[in-house]
Each structure stands twice: as structure tokens, then as C-alpha cells.
């Protein structure tokens, strides 16, 4: 029986009186590749935010990497986040430093020596096919390349759980394919658990073994493939 990496138990969340999640249940197990599918505005981002402990549920239980979200202190959250990688639609890369420095940034801030961090960042960039862009400025990259840098930044810390919030939302089909392929590689080769939120049903074909969760009207339901 695989271990539960992320669990939602009857989770409800609302913003300004509007219900986003209503007693939603979800379980992501170790080694899973899970697509969270749903149209824009149904609660995919809320689900991701709850998963990396940026939000707390109004009701219900969220368990991340074995830690009950309720009652966690800021220090505990920081420790748990070191085991989670997150990538966003808008990349959240730092434009005042190089590609390599962006990838090494998280490692350096969590206590890895600069030289070691740079070396690991180079390896992560190689894995996403961007080794040659390491010294470049972020502004010189295409959208797809930026997202792969963001993936490298997440993977370099060898996370137990990788959360992707519409990572292909701003990308053309070719770049989208490369990003999905990179995440599939991380899951199949490195064993990283992936929760991939998207509105794009066409991506499902790229990862045939992935589980699919459909989110609508506040509920999360598993869809048989």
C-alpha cells in the first residue's frame, strides 16, 4: 500500500462568502502522477495553495507529507516546504539573477554551500535540457524555457511532492509538450510524486499512467481512464 503524500478529508474553503471547496476529498500517494483537471476558477489553485500550506482549510483536514495542516507553526511549515516543489503558470523566477542562480537560490537559502548548490543546479538544468542556458539572464529565455527553469528549481531540492499550478497555461503546444515530458520524466525516473493542475484535457494523453482527478462545484472526484 503506497504511502499517502497528500490527503484532503472533507475539506471546505470559501473566499468572501463564495464556496470554492465543499467537503472535498483527495488522496495523492507516493510515486503518483495526478492530473487535477477542471475549468478555470473552480478551485485548482486553492487546492494547490492548501497543499503547500499557503492556505488553511475552513473545515476538514489537510495532511501534507504526514503533517496535519491544522495547528502547524510557521517554522514547521518552512520545514515541510523544503520537501515540496511548486511551479506556477507565471514561473515566479527572479529576474535579477542568472538561470543558474535562480535554480541554486532555494538550496543556498536552506543551508547548502554555494559551490555545492551551483553544482546541483547545473545537474538539474541538464535534466531539463537547459544546461547551456545556465549563465543567461532570465529575460532572454522563452516561456517554455522559463517554465523548465522553474521545474529545475523545484527538482533540484529533490522534493517528495511536486505541485504544478497550470504550468503550461502560458505556453505554446510545443513548449507545453516539453514541460509535461519533463514532469513525467521526474515522476518515472526520479520517483517524484506530481500533482499537476490544469484545465487542458489534451495533456492527459502525454502521461498514460497518470491518475485523473476532476474538480467541479467544490468536489474532487477521481475519473477512471
Amino acid at each position, binding site marked *: 500500500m503506497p504511502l499517502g503524500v497528500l490527503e484532503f478529508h472533507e475539506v471546505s474553503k470559501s473566499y468572501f462568502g463564495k464556496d470554492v471547496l465543499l467537503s472535498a476529498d483527495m488522496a495523492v500517494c507516493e510515486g503518483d502522477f495526478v492530473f487535477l483537471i477542471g475549468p478555470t476558477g473552480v478551485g485548482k489553485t486553492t487546492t494547490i495553495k492548501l497543499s503547500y500550506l499557503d492556505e488553511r482549510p475552513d473545515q476538514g483536514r489537510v495532511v501534507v507529507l504526514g503533517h496535519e495542516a491544522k495547528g502547524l507553526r510557521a517554522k514547521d*511549515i*518552512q520545514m515541510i516546504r*523544503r520537501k515540496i516543489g511548486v511551479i506556477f503558470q507565471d514561473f*515566479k523566477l*527572479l529576474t535579477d*539573477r542568472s538561470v543558474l542562480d535562480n535554480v541554486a537560490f532555494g538550496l543556498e*537559502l536552506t543551508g547548502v554551500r554555494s559551490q555545492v548548490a551551483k553544482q546541483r543546479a547545473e545537474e538539474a538544468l541538464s535534466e531539463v535540457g537547459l544546461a547551456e542556458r545556465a549563465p543567461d539572464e532570465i529575460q532572454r529565455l522563452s516561456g517554455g524555457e522559463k517554465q523548465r527553469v522553474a521545474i529545475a528549481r523545484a527538482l533540484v*531540492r529533490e522534493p517528495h511532492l511536486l505541485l504544478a499550478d497550470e504550468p503550461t497555461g502560458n505556453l505554446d503546444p510545443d513548449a507545453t509538450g516539453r514541460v509535461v515530458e519533463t514532469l513525467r520524466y521526474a515522476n518515472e525516473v526520479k520517483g517524484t510524486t506530481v500533482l499537476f493542475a490544469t484545465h487542458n484535457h489534451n495533456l492527459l494523453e502525454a502521461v498514460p499512467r497518470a491518475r485523473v482527478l476532476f474538480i467541479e462545484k467544490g468536489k474532487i472526484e477521481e475519473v477512471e481512464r
Partner: protein
Amino acid sequence: MRAVLSEASRAYRANSLMAWFSIISAFLLLLLFGISTVITLGVLGLLGQMRRDLSLEVFMADSATVAQIAHFESVVPQLAGVQGVKHISREKALEEFTGEFPEFGEIKGLLGEIPLPESYRITPSDDWRSAELMTMLARKLSSLPGVEEVYYGGEFLGGAERVYRSVLFVTAALFIVVFMATAFIIFQTLRLTVTSRRDVIEVAMLVGAPIWKVRFPFVLDGCLYGVFGGGLAAAALSGFAWIMANILGVGIPGLAWVLALLPASGLLLGLLASRSALSEVMGR
């Protein structure tokens, strides 16, 4: 630590113009505070010197009887606030007078007698060396039989004390204004810096960086702005002190303390301002 210092450097470069505005503001305001503190210390030193030199001159009436003088000499040493009593004979008074004013050296020969009265020099206790208590003591002495006049420079001392209180008030008020103004300017600078660096903070929080590592670069910048501004103010003040000492021959009491106080104040201001800015922008 290298990564944290690197972030501090980036934060400075992101807003270097405002950073220098903060440093120069801190420098000017702390210099103003330093100068006013030096003036206060100078006035305090002068006042202390005046108080140490204080004595009451009690002049006896020519008509004072032997019994009255004997009564005076027995009663006065017992009065509260009196530390010592010294009799100044007419001859001793003349000697002191002509020593101070040599042009009147022949006065005794001209007048045929010494025109100065018998007097006593009263040394007050240390805790009575204020204008108010000296006036009280002078009144008591004036009321004794045989006493013609008591002189103690009370008005001058009272005036000096009033000047000191005014200077102290101005310095204290200035300290509050300077403290608030400098803190506000550094606070605004860091608020802008932190706001412009929100992306870095967000990513740092996202990767699980310890909170102190996220905050420290900004706190370090704030402290450095304050210390640098205070250090410049201390350097300018020591230059001012050098000119006073070597050209005008006037020493500044307590200068070393003031010079140390300026960067220390800057450090405190930077620390408070950066913490406030972080709390406002980061929300904790």
C-alpha cells in the same frame, strides 16, 4: 550566510538611490543631535563648575556687636546646608581685593582705614548647590542679627540653570524629532525595498527558507544605513571637535561618549525601522 549577504547586497542595489537618501538623512539628523548633545554637555559642565565654586559671602554690619558675631559663629555651622564657615577679616578681605584689583593697592593709605567689612565665607553642602537652596540658605543667613548683606551670585546661578534646562529641553525634543524622522526615512526606504523585493521573499518562503534568512538581508540593510549615517555624523563631529580644540582651544566634555552614541543610535534606528517595514509588508 553568503547567500544572505548576497541578498542584502541585491536589496541595496534594488533601491540604492533611496538608500543613500536614508544614509544622508541619518547623517544630517544625527549630526544635529550630536551637536546639540555636545552643547548640552558643555553647558552642564559649566554649570557643574559654577556649582563647585559656589560660596556665600556674608558681610557683617559695622555696628555688629561682639555678642552678635559670637552668636553668628556658633549658629551658622549648625545650619542645614552649611559645610564650612571661614572668617574673612578686614585685612584678609583687603588683601584679596587688592590682589584682584591691583589699581586699588593704595586705598588703605588714602582713606586711612580699611573700607571693607568683616565677612564670612560659607561653603554649602554638595546637595545644596542649586539656585533654589542657595537662596533659601542666604535668606536664613540674612535674618541673623548683625548681618548686613549676603552675596552668592544667585541670579547668575539661576540664569545658568534656566539656560541649562532650556538646552536640555531642546536637546531632548530634538532627540525625539531626530529619532522619529530618521526612523521614518529608513522605514520608508526599506518599505519600498521590501515591496520591490516581494518576488524574492515569496520564492524564499516557498522553498522553505528559515524566516530569519528571509528577513535578515533587509534588517542588515536598515542597520547598515543607520550605522553608516551615524558613523558619518560621528566623523563630522570629531572634525568639529578637532577644530574647537586645536584652533579655538575649547575642549568638549564627554565627546567620546557622544561619538559612540551616534552610530549606536543609527544601529537602533535601522533595526527598529527595518523590523517595522518587514512587519508591514510581510504581515508578521
